């Protein structure tokens, strides 16, 4: 039973505040992904939960117990560090078994758990080596292994897969998912790879310069981003976001082009409002080549010039010029296009987003 709850959690270095009183309730056995741009305070938050960093304000509860003043060893957590943090003087086997040895585990129990972890992570051939004799990816796997040999209440992962190659990363992602299903611990997983966050997490926490922007399931943060920042951060390629002014049932962009104001926002805006219009590449597509071609309720069509294309095999990213800039669209069942072609594009406005230009908050409810 290990819920984690952060209340008004803050971190200051001198008089510079890095984390600004964040609140977060994490349920028992939940898999939480913490994402955000570099330097936004993800590692700092994680380290405060681990007890490696003093807390400047607020409280952290683990399993209903306030842990602010407990040393890391009393919090029953295990952590994978961004920089591996392996013990350089110990073999891989000793690294894996160290926490068990400290806890005074029996020899055969220890051997069994180390063997299990090394089998999951494919470390069997490396057990007698030292960290200095391993590649970056191998070190990262040892670091993972060191965390999973134990049976902690909470796992803390700080970008554990960032140094693996694409194939290994996908493989390890699956392993982590399996592992979570098996061990039933709470997991807090820092990553800047949104695919990892989307595929692994029950809920995603998006942070930006020390604030939490949104907490929600992968589907929620993808289809109902609370802010302009989240909209741009989640999704690949990112959402097209452009400033516009509401005027007389229309959105007028800075370059002079305009789109009809989507119906759902009519009652929420008034003429003269400055807004940010957002549309995902999936909802802006060459007519007839979209996800929901045919079933849309509110489509705006326009003939636009193609500036470049990025073929990806099963689909092509088409950059079409609108309002003087490139808007990225996703073309399914692609047909060959070349720069300069004019092509009929559909804007599925029922799925578009509108954010207040001032606060960045979504105008969708």
């Amino acid at each position, binding site marked *: 039973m290990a819920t984690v709850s952060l209340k008004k959690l803050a971190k200051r270095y001198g008089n510079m505040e890095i984390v600004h009183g964040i609140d977060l309730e994490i349920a028992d056995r939940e898999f939480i992904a913490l994402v955000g741009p570099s330097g936004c305070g993800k590692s700092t938050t994680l380290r405060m939960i681990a007890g490696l960093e003093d807390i400047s304000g607020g409280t952290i509860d683990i399993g209903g117990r306030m842990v602010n003043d407990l040393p890391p060893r009393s919090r029953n957590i295990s952590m994978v560090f961004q920089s591996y*943090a392996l*013990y350089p003087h110990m073999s891989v086997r000793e690294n894996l078994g160290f926490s068990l040895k*400290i806890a005074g585990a029996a020899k055969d129990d220890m051997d069994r758990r180390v063997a299990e972890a090394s089998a999951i992570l494919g470390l069997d051939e490396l057990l007698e080596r030292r960290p200095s004799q391993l590649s970056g990816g191998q070190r990262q796997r040892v670091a993972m292994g060191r965390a999973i040999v134990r049976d902690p209440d909470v796992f803390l992962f700080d970008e554990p897969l960032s140094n693996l190659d694409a194939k290994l990363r996908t493989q390890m992602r699956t392993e982590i998912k399996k592992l979570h299903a098996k061990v039933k611990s709470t997991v807090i997983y820092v990553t800047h790879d949104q695919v990892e966050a989307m595929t692994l997490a029950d809920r995603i926490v998006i942070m930006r310069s020390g604030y939490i922007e949104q907490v929600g399931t992968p589907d929620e943060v993808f289809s109902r981003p609370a802010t302009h920042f989240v909209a741009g951060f989640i999704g690949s390629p990112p959402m097209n976001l452009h400033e516009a002014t509401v005027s007389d049932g229309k959105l007028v962009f800075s370059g002079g082009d305009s789109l009809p104001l989507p119906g759902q926002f009519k009652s929420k805006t008034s003429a003269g409002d400055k807004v940010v219009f957002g549309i995902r590449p999936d909802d802006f597509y060459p007519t007839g080549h979209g996800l929901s071609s045919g079933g849309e309720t509110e489509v705006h069509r326009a003939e636009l010039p193609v500036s470049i294309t990025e073929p990806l095999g099963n689909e092509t990213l088409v950059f079409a010029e609108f309002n003087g800039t490139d808007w990225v669209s996703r073309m399914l069942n692609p047909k060959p296009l070349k720069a300069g072609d004019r092509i009929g594009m559909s804007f599925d406005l029922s799925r578009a987003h509108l954010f207040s230009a001032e606060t960045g908050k979504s105008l969708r409810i």
Partner: protein
Amino acid sequence: MKGFKPSAPFLLLLPAIIVLAAVVVLPLILSLYSSFTPFRLTRPETFFVFVGFRNYLSILSNADFWWAFGRTVLLLTIALNLEMLLGLGLAMLVEKATRGQRILRTLMMFPMMFSPILVGFQFKFMFNDNIGLVNNALQSLGLTQDAIPWLIEGRLAFIAISIAEIWSSTSIFAILILAGLLAMPKEPIEAARVDGCTPWQTFRYVTWPFVMPFAYIAMTIRSLDVARAYDIVKIMTDGGPAGRTELLWTLVGRTAYSDARMGMANAMAYFSILLSIAFTVYFYNKLAAARAQIGAEW
């Protein structure tokens, strides 16, 4: 000179070889040879009397020599261990300091800046039974009524010398261990804390193995130093009282210059060098092992 054409590199190195031979090799050979003679400075002709291993044999049965030998080993053991402990403590304290670390590091090196002779004089003064600082302080604090005969009683004198040795050289350990602590990556320590280590366990299993090679470097340096410990003892007690603080090198010095028995002194000296070499080899091996342990790349 037909047929003998020395190569150019040899010719170019020749001056260096000659100088080295003159100032190092020749004295070495002469002193080694003299250790096989009953050579006395007062009777030069004895230089040419070859007596084989007689000097060495008489050393083996010389109680004074063995006392000095044992005392030297004892001093080495006590001084090195205490210096390492104190140096480690000092280094860890300084490493913790968040402010003024540079100043502290400089202060820490102070004892190294003094000549051992000066250190000897200073401690001789401090341990003086009448006017010394130590007795004065002890008496003022009411810890003792009597003047403690620091440099007069054999065992106390040995302690006083050890203290002077330790004071003057702890900083070598402190500096080297501090270098180790500063070079150490911080993440493994954090990992250990998360893995459940108490501060002591963190030190025992993570910090210490990393710092150990640095301690062994200091040990190696110091083992050479202490095995030739001379100046501080010479000044503080001159081996006295009644030879109770006589170390190998003060004994060698006395035999050579006071007794003028150069042959015998050289034999003792060669014997003592074996001790130095033994200590150095020992610590060097430890160092190599410790380096391999942490996978050091230096």
